[in-house]
């Protein structure tokens, strides 16, 4: 299985992820890109700041990749990238790409991967407003007790 895992303080290019996992035997690449939103609960967000426990986050990406390989053995590649530092509105903050022989497995593994990332990746997000800032938690945190 081809893999590509990255915590980066520069922009994420989904094409780089796809390129890293392209495989001649794979007819499908599913990609999810998360982009930063300009509001939270009606309040205008100016930009976001992401902080990661980078070495652990990269290990966690690897762990999620292994989990995907176990659940969908036909998967031929897993690529994951997450931004850190200041991220402007509309920029990609996270991306995951999965290659597989056929679309069904690629799409399912991609959906699983982003769900796992949001629950376990040691990354924190701060929304910066005109009049202050707030750390924003993922709801997925509540769904962690699944005995993984």
């Amino acid at each position, binding site marked *: 299985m081809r893999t590509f895992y990255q915590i980066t303080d520069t922009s994420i290019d989904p094409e780089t992820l796809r390129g890293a996992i392209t495989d001649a035997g794979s007819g499908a690449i599913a990609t999810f890109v998360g982009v930063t939103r300009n509001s939270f609960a009606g309040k205008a967000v100016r930009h976001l700041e992401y*902080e990661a426990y980078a070495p652990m986050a990269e290990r966690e990406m690897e762990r999620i990749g292994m989990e995907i390989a176990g659940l969908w053995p036909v998967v031929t590649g897993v690529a994951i990238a997450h931004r850190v530092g200041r991220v402007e509105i509309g920029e990609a903050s*996270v991306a995951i790409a999965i290659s597989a022989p056929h679309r069904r497995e690629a799409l399912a593994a991609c959906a699983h991967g982003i769900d796992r990332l949001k629950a*376990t990746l*040691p990354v924190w997000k701060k929304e910066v407003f005109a009049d202050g800032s707030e750390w924003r938690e993922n709801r997925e945190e509540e769904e962690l007790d699944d005995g993984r």
Partner: protein
Amino acid sequence: MRDGMRVVVRLFGPAREAVGAGSVELELAPAATAADAVVAVGEAHPSLAPLLPRSRVAVNLEYVDAGTPLVPGDEIAILPPVGGG
């Protein structure tokens, strides 16, 4: 304490902000667990109190259970609820 162990506890996100530092050093009893480290860091930094019950703990880059025993030199991290994506 003479036979204690010195560990580094790294702090992230709101925990880092609450303490005003990315890591703190702690002296723990020899047979201390991850949970003991959390208690000790909370005593040393009361500003963390609201966050600690909701935080997870990692030792040497892996999530661990509260009862995980620590050894000298371990890198412990307090991980508040994550917000990646």
